[in-house]
């Protein structure tokens, strides 16, 4: 009887462990979230920290409602979400549009690699905050320096991911193309580029996270709108509930964009991890 119940499932599902994990992870995630909120509630009831430092979940929820209805600083949070998303998306797309071709060139032409790499290694460890004075002096206080900051912060990830994707092309794939008479140009276009795509997507997923990280720094530059601005502005006014609400919105948006990239990835490189 038991075998009868178990067997069809085992046959229908070629990846029982994978599915099991996926199911468990959803359950675990919800449980962890609930437990965290519960713990937060308990800690705030016990008043282990002053309410001004750690407002209870209810206060944060109220802050949410206010942010979405009346807003903070003269506009609703929708404006902040819109402007911040726009900055992140433009900066990120700029990093992709410049970073991917540059990475491909660097991987293929040693001279270009030698020219660009020192700059790349130099800007990589510099925290984005450090560029602010320079960007303001050079580009003023409009949208351009904000977007450039995000772009500069994100582009190393994209370039390095692209280069490593090119270098990771299995030699067998190249040898096959060569014996079938493909030219170097054709090999690049038809073998190396698709082989590098999975790693480029990984870089993009890491990159979108970095772009959001740079956002708060970018909105230190004379902003009066945006989620980064909201968090700082509310922080200065000791509106911790608003700060927490803003952080949660940033986290959700960052995660949503990562999921969007993953969706494109699954459609573009369905062969990933299945050789």
């Amino acid at each position: 009887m038991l075998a009868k119940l178990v067997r069809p499932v085992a046959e229908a599902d070629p990846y029982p462990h994978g599915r099991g994990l996926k199911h468990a992870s959803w359950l675990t995630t919800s449980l962890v979230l609930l437990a965290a909120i519960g713990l937060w509630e308990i800690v705030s009831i016990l008043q282990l920290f002053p309410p001004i430092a750690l407002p209870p979940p209810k206060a944060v929820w109220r802050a949410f409602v206010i942010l979405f209805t009346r807003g903070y600083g003269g506009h609703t949070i929708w404006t902040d979400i819109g402007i911040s998303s726009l900055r992140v998306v433009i900066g990120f797309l700029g990093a992709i549009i410049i970073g991917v071709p540059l990475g491909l060139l660097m991987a293929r032409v040693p001279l270009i690699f030698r020219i660009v790499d020192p700059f790349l290694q130099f800007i990589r460890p510099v925290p984005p905050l450090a560029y602010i004075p320079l960007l303001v002096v050079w580009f003023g206080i409009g949208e351009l320096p904000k977007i450039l900051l995000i772009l500069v912060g994100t582009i190393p990830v994209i370039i390095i991911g692209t280069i490593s994707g090119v270098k990771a092309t299995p030699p067998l794939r190249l040898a096959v193309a060569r014996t079938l008479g493909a030219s170097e140009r054709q090999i690049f276009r038809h073998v190396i580029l698709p082989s590098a795509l999975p790693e480029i997507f990984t870089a993009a997923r890491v990159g979108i996270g970095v772009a959001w990280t740079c956002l708060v720094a970018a909105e230190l530059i004379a902003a009066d709108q945006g989620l980064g601005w909201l968090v700082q502005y509310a922080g200065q006014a000791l509106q911790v509930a608003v700060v927490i609400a803003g952080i949660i919105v940033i986290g959700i948006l960052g995660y949503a964009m990562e999921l969007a990239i993953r969706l494109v990835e699954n459609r573009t490189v369905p062969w990933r991890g299945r050789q």
Partner: protein
Amino acid sequence: MPIEIEGVTKTFNGQRALDELSLRVEDGSFLTILGASGCGKSTLLNILAGLETPSTGRILLDGTPVTGPGPDRVVVFQKPGLYPWLSLRDNIAFGLRMRGSSSLPWREVDRVIELIGLKGFEKHRPYELSGGMQQRVAIARALVMHPRVLLMDEPFGALDAQTRETMQEFLTELWERIQATVIFVTHDIDEAIMLGSRLVVMSARPGRISLDEPVTLGRPRDWDMITTPDFLALKRAARRILAGQTH
């Protein structure tokens, strides 16, 4: 219109992988090259393919020296090396597409797909196929180019025993039909004798030809032949050479 290997030497870091190797392969023959790993047989195949250049000596194809890879000498490697972003049909058509012809001979592609018995799988991606199927696609991808020479580098080495046997039968039948020259490298004695019409055994360090004998078994080949005196005599001779190599 033969392939001539003329005094080919290959040196890696001062080590001689191939030592003054000369061989003449007649058109349409099935030559198997047998040797222990590290005897330079794959190096020889890569030189024939034009993927590597000999340190000295040269390869002549119809009297013309080989200078690089070309679709007249396609290689089938140990692993299929299919492109996962292409369907089975597009994988097979890859070489034709690289040739740059404006209209691809799809009818020929489909004929080859039928030849390898994978009709109905045209739209499948490589990772949806079994190892044996993938290797058949790799062979089809080579065949569709109508190569003068099919170079095979232990193409069945990564397959399980049953699949390997099926593939060996498949290749033998195929060769009888297409009558291209096949140069087949392997370390499996039975496979080398079973498939080839001529057997070359290489010894290692430096890579040299130690035995060069015609395989006198009739065709079609059959695995029952492995008990015939001709088979056993050849196997004994080959084993003696290979055994002398391992200390």
